[in-house]
């Protein structure tokens, strides 16, 4: 973000400044309209067209396994990008939030475990699951904003693994090792959402919703303040911003995104077990976010596509059991050689062949 943009943004958010009376603000230039700052380019139309047309020519397997899965995983990883790339808080507990949503969906809604599930219809169970998971995400945030940087990673990892062990040990509510099987997407208005194509469009709608929500919030005064806090919390504090409150609010937004992603991912799998909130999945979400790059909300979706493609096809090339080795190696290579992920590689390529357009605005990400 350039200095001028930054000043603009700060002025736009000056209503929040406690010392607004003292500061005499210079006359502001008119804020540019959103479309002028963000022109719709050919690549946007191309990507959207591709996403909409994808199920028409892809097989149901591709639509479901690749399309829907990467979009759902991307949505969960988006919540981490939102927190990590723009709030400077790398939380490993986003999959835990998603898992809470999945578990609540199974507990309140219908599942194979009739004795434990309440069996309420989807239009009650889904909102309850999302609300509870968002609250859990906010609570995790409230707990971890007391710390910074690497401390946040440690605490969110501890919270996430503790939840995993809770799921594993608790049989009275969470059904222990078994978890909940047969948690399926409902039939709405005669459309069976379990079918690949309707499910794909459901996930696509949610993913687009999450993407544009993130983009919108990041341009709103709140989002700008959040990025300011990422870059220099003390200065923002001195300017009268409540640093803690902004951070907790960021966790709440991320919690909502992760909760929606969690519901979708649970429907995709048709089950939720302790394994779905285990360490490997906590870390997989981080891998996806870092792989794509944490500098733009599109990053997690790119990362998710690469991750799912690797998971599905690359293991055919080598031993099927060695997927973790491949994904760990790819992750290591990205972290070691391109900390900004695939988007960083793209930006590096672009700067070699400059074309005048600025692709990546925010600074930061993983440093």
């Amino acid at each position, binding site marked *: 973000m350039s200095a001028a943009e930054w000043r603009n943004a700060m002025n736009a958010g000056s209503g929040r400044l406690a010392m607004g009376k003292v500061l005499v603000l210079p006359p502001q230039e008119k804020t540019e309209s959103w479309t002028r700052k963000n022109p719709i380019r050919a690549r946007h139309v191309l990507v959207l067209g591709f996403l909409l047309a994808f199920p028409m020519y892809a097989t149901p397997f591709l639509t479901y396994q690749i399309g829907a899965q990467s979009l759902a995983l991307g949505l969960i990883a988006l919540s981490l990008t939102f927190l990590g790339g723009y709030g400077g808080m*790398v939380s490993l507990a986003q999959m835990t939030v998603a898992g809470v949503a999945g578990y609540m969906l199974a507990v309140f809604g219908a599942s194979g475990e009739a004795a434990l599930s309440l069996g309420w219809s989807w239009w009650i169970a889904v909102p309850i699951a999302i609300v509870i998971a968002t609250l859990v995400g906010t609570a995790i945030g409230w*707990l*971890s904003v*007391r*710390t910074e*940087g*690497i*401390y946040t*990673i*440690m*605490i969110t*990892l*501890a*919270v996430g*693994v*503790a939840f995993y*062990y*809770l799921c594993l*040990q*608790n*049989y*009275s509510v969470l059904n222990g090792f078994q978890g909940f099987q047969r948690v399926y997407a409902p039939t709405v208005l005669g459309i069976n959402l379990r079918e690949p194509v309707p499910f794909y469009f459901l996930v696509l709608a949610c993913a687009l919703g999450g993407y544009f929500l993130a983009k919108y919030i990041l341009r709103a005064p709140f989002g700008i303040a959040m990025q300011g806090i990422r870059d220099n919390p003390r200065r923002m504090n001195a300017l009268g911003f409540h640093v803690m409150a902004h951070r907790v609010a960021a966790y709440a937004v991320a919690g909502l995104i992760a909760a929606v992603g969690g519901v979708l991912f649970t429907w995709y799998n048709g089950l939720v077990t302790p394994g779905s909130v285990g*360490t*490997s999945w906590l*870390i997989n979400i*981080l891998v996806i976010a*870092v792989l794509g790059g944490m500098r733009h909300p599109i990053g997690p979706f790119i990362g998710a596509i690469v991750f799912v493609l690797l998971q599905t096809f690359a293991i055919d090339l080598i031993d099927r*059991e*060695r997927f*973790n*080795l491949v*994904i*760990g*190696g790819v*992750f*290591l290579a990205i*972290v*070691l050689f391109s*900390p900004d992920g695939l988007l960083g590689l793209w930006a590096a390529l672009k700067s070699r062949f400059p074309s005048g357009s600025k692709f990546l605005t925010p600074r930061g990400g*993983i*440093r």
Partner: protein
Amino acid sequence: MSRLQKWFWGLALVPPLSVFAVWGIWDNAKLFFITLLNGLTLASLYFIVASGFTLVFGLMRNVNLAHGSLYLLGGYVGYIVAEKTGLFVLALAAGFLVAALVGLLMQVAIFRFMQGEDLRQTMVTIGLSIVIADLLLWGIGAQVHQMSAPGWLAGPLRDIPLITAYSKYRMALLPLGIIIGVLLWLFLNRTRVGMMIRAGVDDRGMLAATGVNVNLVFAATFAIGAGLAGFGGVIGAVELSMVPGEDVRLLLASLIVVIVGGMGSVVGAALGAVILGVAETYGLAYAPTYSVVFTFVILVMVLAFRPRGILGQAA
């Protein structure tokens, strides 16, 4: 901590805990004391593993999330050596050395080049932990390995008042943990290298300015920290068991121990290890399905009131 706070914590913690203790002893004294011993011996293992973690963190601000993998690696190496030679002491040494070597390699080959980039270093350790865990799974397999205690520590220790008998090996862990703690304390407080490490914890730049080769100190610390994980692995191979997934468990334990005790402090690690070990075993003995909740409540309480841990100081 002010005097008022001390009183508050004393009143909030001591009466419920003593009520629980009295009830526990009255209800089933044997179970109570065996659980206490189990907790303390588990704490001893946690301390050995977590002290390495906290040492590395304190000096280098490097959260080594591959610490659990080094623990598992040490355990497997110890197992193989003990199987080949039959000497437990040799297994301990091998576990320590191999893990220390891997740690040294990590520091020299990778972390040296990203000094000061905390978050990126942590990411790298996550990547390493995935790779090491999968390599171990590849090489050793997923079955459970259990190492038997050496002959002179096998079997129970009989004729103890109240609890009648207790495993000799587990009993021996108690003094072992204390010895390692004392040695570590002596090393950090009474030797030249220890002095350099402590100086580095306080101010890295100043230490370098006085002409000390900081990279060498870093490498030594990382090797010792990793070695302690491997050493703990060999001990844990007998006390617990070795199976993929144990690495995560010990990593979680180390994390909680240092978060509760205070990061970068060896005494804090001892305190955190005792709290965690005792809470975990009492939880398992008295409320099995919710035992992890106790751990979690402790974590939350400490974070809410002492965000830097009980003995932690401002970074």
